[in-house]
């Protein structure tokens, strides 16, 4: 089974992840990849408390995650890997020697330098560039907040204007 979803979501662990994807995919572990959270016991405890008892959570910096990735991919249980931003996912994918074939853009929300692309995706020009680089690195990039909605291809995502969907 191993890692069944690689997701970029600025809320990291939250309802859409543990219930929306977690239930249908029978998720048993989450790999939370974030340099800041990896440095903070307090942050880790917060996310641990927010995780249902049937799931394990593992915390890694981006560099550590790249080292540990093959171990998680060999895990028999279905798992989700999360990053909070595009840059972290790109760094991971580049270090992972094309082990990551698909990346899900799950939620990147409003910020002053970002332009709205979908209801749940706002992107700055540099983030758009990083998403293209993700695609160039061999990962198929689609946006999809929950399993019941349609995945939006990267080309469509970057072409879409606010209010679409």
């Amino acid at each position, binding site marked *: 089974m191993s890692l069944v979803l690689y997701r970029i979501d*600025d*809320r*990291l*662990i*939250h*309802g859409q*992840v*543990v*219930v929306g994807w977690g239930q249908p995919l029978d998720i048993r572990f989450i790999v939370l990849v974030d340099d800041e959270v990896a440095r903070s016991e*307090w942050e880790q405890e*917060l*996310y641990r*408390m*927010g*995780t*249902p008892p049937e799931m394990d959570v593992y915390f890694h910096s981006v560099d550590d995650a790249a080292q540990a990735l093959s171990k998680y991919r060999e895990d028999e249980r279905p798992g989700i890997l999360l990053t909070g931003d595009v840059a972290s996912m790109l760094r991971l994918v580049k270090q992972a020697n094309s082990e990551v074939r698909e990346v899900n853009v799950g*939620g990147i*929300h*409003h*910020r002053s330098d970002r332009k709205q692309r979908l*209801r*749940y995706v706002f992107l700055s020009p540099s983030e758009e560039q990083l998403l293209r680089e993700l695609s160039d690195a061999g990962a198929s990039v689609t946006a999809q907040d929950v399993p019941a909605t349609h995945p939006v291809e990267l080309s469509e995502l970057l072409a879409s204007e606010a209010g679409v969907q």
Partner: protein
Amino acid sequence: MSEKGATAAGVSPVRALVAGHGDFAAGLVSAVQQITGRGDVFRAVSARDLSGVDLEALIDRSLTETGAVVVFTDLQAGSCTMAARRLTRNRPNVVLVAGANLPMLLDFVFADNVPPVEAARHAMERGRDAIGAIGDRK
């Protein structure tokens, strides 16, 4: 407690926030309003399409504006619960109850003679006890 004596004109009647996904909060508060006429005890907050940072700021601002120290949320792992937990670091007096339901909020509404924190603990127990399967004879 400091909650007492807040009877001066202009003081917010809000004693708790209700926060959750979609229209969860507004829906629960409208149900409380229909049953008791006291929906004004709560302020509804929706997590819809907000980043974690913006959501935390919204809940924080709502607490400041209303003077409330109790937050009811929908889901343990939900983003409202995460955001509210995050801000308890700077607001140690805030009580957070995750997994809110209608019986819980109704109990809270009627416990208006005790401090909100105490009322929240009582409401939590009542909300838990109110869950049951109809016709399930063991």
